[in-house]
């Protein structure tokens, strides 16, 4: 047996008290806690019965650097990830300059290495088209070589189906998956509110759910035709989930993510007395109906939707404290995702299996990232979690620079106490 560097004692893993043995950054063994322990030279971390969970992977965040460091930067984004329970994060390309060349990718990775040498690991997502313009393919070979784990035009969907097809084909040459932000560019104005009852009453131009579902249908047909994978970003509505379920039944190489806010919030937040017209709840795709929320939970539990992602979209306070029409879309999410989704597990809404699959094995499988399933040889990425600790969401308790969440003021349950990535303590 290899030399043990770290032992985490008496952690609660799926109801059982266990000791975790780590060697050279990898899991060596996980076994029921023994009364006595021969630790040798190993560092011993006493867990005192805290919950042990594998680190999570977020395949959809916006770190804003370079270009918008006042909203977030690589350092602050990774800090939020570390405290949020994430060992792997994938960051979108809509920076300034856009991440459509190797130099930008390398800049991001240098920043990550400098500030967080032991992780969380950063996996940039390269632009699908130059400048996110939707006209010419980005140099995906160069981007892949520089370290991009996937390609996407997120936020600026590719209007031309022809260009999108070419991008999916070309990305496959570099063994990378394309992530599509599904929004018909003609029907789908980034209104930040669902088209329906609430938008009609409030007099806000809304985005219909079919704007998303039509693009989902396009992508399914293309993926089937090309026999190539496409990953669908932040799915928000039942129509899309039904299409994805149908596609999977046909064996189409489609994968999909949804976010904690589509599992827990609806459009009604925008006409509640305290939060009417609150731009903190403005997000794209918009918060949908209660039926859509239920559909997201069903789809996550039955595996139709493969994984969770935060779509962490930090903005400066003044950008959101403005008229609803004027405010940018987006909710900050790295800090709150774990508490929110673990709350669904605790309430019996989301199965523990679905939670683990959605935050760990599924996203890592789709994008070929390191994953810990507590098997020998897995990366020693895990955290100790106090399930019962209450914390109030406030600017002071969020590690991200982005304080833009409709959860401000809410009391959430569960906090990360210690986080190990590849056997090294990062928080």
């Amino acid at each position: 047996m290899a030399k043990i560097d770290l032992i985490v004692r008496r952690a609660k893993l799926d109801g059982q008290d266990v000791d975790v043995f780590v060697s050279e950054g990898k899991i060596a063994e996980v076994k029921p806690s023994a009364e006595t322990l021969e630790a040798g030279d190993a560092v011993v971390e006493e867990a005192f019965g805290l919950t042990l969970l594998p680190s999570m992977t977020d395949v959809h965040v916006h770190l804003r650097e370079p270009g918008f460091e006042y909203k977030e930067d690589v350092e602050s984004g990774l800090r939020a990830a570390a405290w949020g329970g994430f060992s792997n994060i994938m960051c979108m390309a809509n920076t300034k300059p856009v991440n459509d060349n190797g130099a930008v990718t390398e800049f991001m990775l240098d920043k990550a290495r400098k500030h967080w040498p032991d992780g969380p690991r950063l996996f940039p997502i390269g632009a699908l088209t130059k400048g996110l313009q939707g006209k010419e393919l980005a140099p995906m070979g160069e981007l892949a070589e520089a370290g991009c784990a996937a390609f996407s035009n997120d936020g600026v969907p590719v209007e031309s189906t022809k260009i999108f097809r070419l991008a999916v084909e070309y990305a496959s040459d570099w063994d990378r998956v394309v992530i599509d932000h599904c929004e018909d560019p003609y029907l789908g104005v980034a209104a930040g509110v669902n088209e329906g009852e609430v938008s009609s009453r409030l007099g806000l131009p809304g985005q219909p759910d079919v704007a998303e579902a039509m693009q989902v249908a396009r992508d399914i047909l293309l993926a089937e035709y090309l026999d190539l994978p496409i990953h669908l970003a932040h799915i928000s509505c039942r129509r899309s989930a039904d299409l994805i379920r149908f596609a999977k039944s046909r064996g189409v190489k489609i994968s999909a993510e949804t976010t904690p806010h589509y599992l827990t919030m609806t459009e009604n937040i925008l006409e509640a007395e305290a939060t009417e017209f609150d731009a903190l709840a403005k997000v794209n795709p918009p918060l949908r109906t209660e039926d859509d929320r239920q559909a997201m939970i069903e789809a996550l539990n039955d595996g139709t939707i493969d994984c969770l992602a935060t779509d962490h979209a930090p903005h400066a306070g003044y950008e959101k404290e403005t008229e609803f029409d004027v405010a940018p879309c987006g909710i900050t999410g790295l800090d709150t995702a774990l508490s929110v989704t673990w709350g669904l597990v605790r309430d019996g809404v989301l199965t523990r299996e679905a939670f683990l699959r959605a935050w760990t094995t599924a996203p890592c499988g789709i994008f070929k990232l390191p994953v810990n399933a507590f098997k020998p040889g897995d990366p020693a990425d895990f955290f100790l979690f106090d399930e019962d600790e209450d914390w109030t969401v406030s600017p002071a308790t969020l590690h991200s620079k982005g304080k833009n969440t409709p959860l401000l003021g809410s009391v959430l349950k569960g906090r990360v106490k210690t986080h190990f990535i590849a056997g090294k303590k990062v928080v």
Partner: protein
Amino acid sequence: MKWLHKDLLDVSRLSKAEVMAIFETAGRFQELQERPVKKVPTLKGRSVVLFFAEPSTRTKTSFDVAGKRLSADTFSLAKSSSSLTKGESLKDTALTLQAMAPDAIVIRHWCSGAARFMADRLDCSVINAGDGRHAHPTQALLDSFTLHQEWGDLSGRTILILGDIAHSRVARSNVILLNMLGAKVRLCGPRTLLPPAVRNWPVEVYSDLDEAVRGVDAVMCLRLQLERQKDGLLPDLREYARTYGLGMKHVELANPDVRIMHPGPLNRGVEISSELADTANSLILDQVASGVVVRMALLFLYMTRKGEE
């Protein structure tokens, strides 16, 4: 009645009793209109800022006249003369106005929710003079007051709102208020100009104007914004006028005493025929007169609310 509300953001926050109190107060101010000196010292020393970030003639003038007749000092701030054109945020505009300690701010803004945004940040009363497509409570109140003057009770009356409902804050506030007052509301317009979820509103929806107007007691025409054609919502204005323009023939189909209303400004020959706008059935100028007294009532009630004199 002790007035408890700080702000008037939409009619939905009012009770029927409060609406009646506004009408009663407005009715008392009507007498003032007949006097040679149309001014009382009720709000002497109080200040009202008229913050119109969107162009307006009649609403702004109406509030200005209303304030001055109550001896309040009124100050105008238009978008063109405000720092909004220099890129100042609405929050900073709100805080700047706050620092000047006005007693009330009347706001018109192109964004739905802008009045609520200001009300959350200002200590003084905020009166919504139209926010985006959301609400225009003072217009709805003056419309109902005008009908109240004609008929007394509105319950059992059928009122048709005609035209571009989707983009109309006037229609949204009127649907709420007319229902509150017991009237039956019909809406008529092309599908492209109806709100997406209109089927769940407390209204009957028509696409055929001849059918919609049959037996109604009043028709409220809405102004058609001519740029809707450029947005692709209409093929052309001629077809709109032919299909949804209110004309003399519709008076025959409606209740013989049908009242014709329009919040102005009118596009004669588009949403309403020119001759109909000038007939005895028309209450369009009565609406303007009602506007002044209703706004006087609102300024009075909101600026002398509980906790103040």
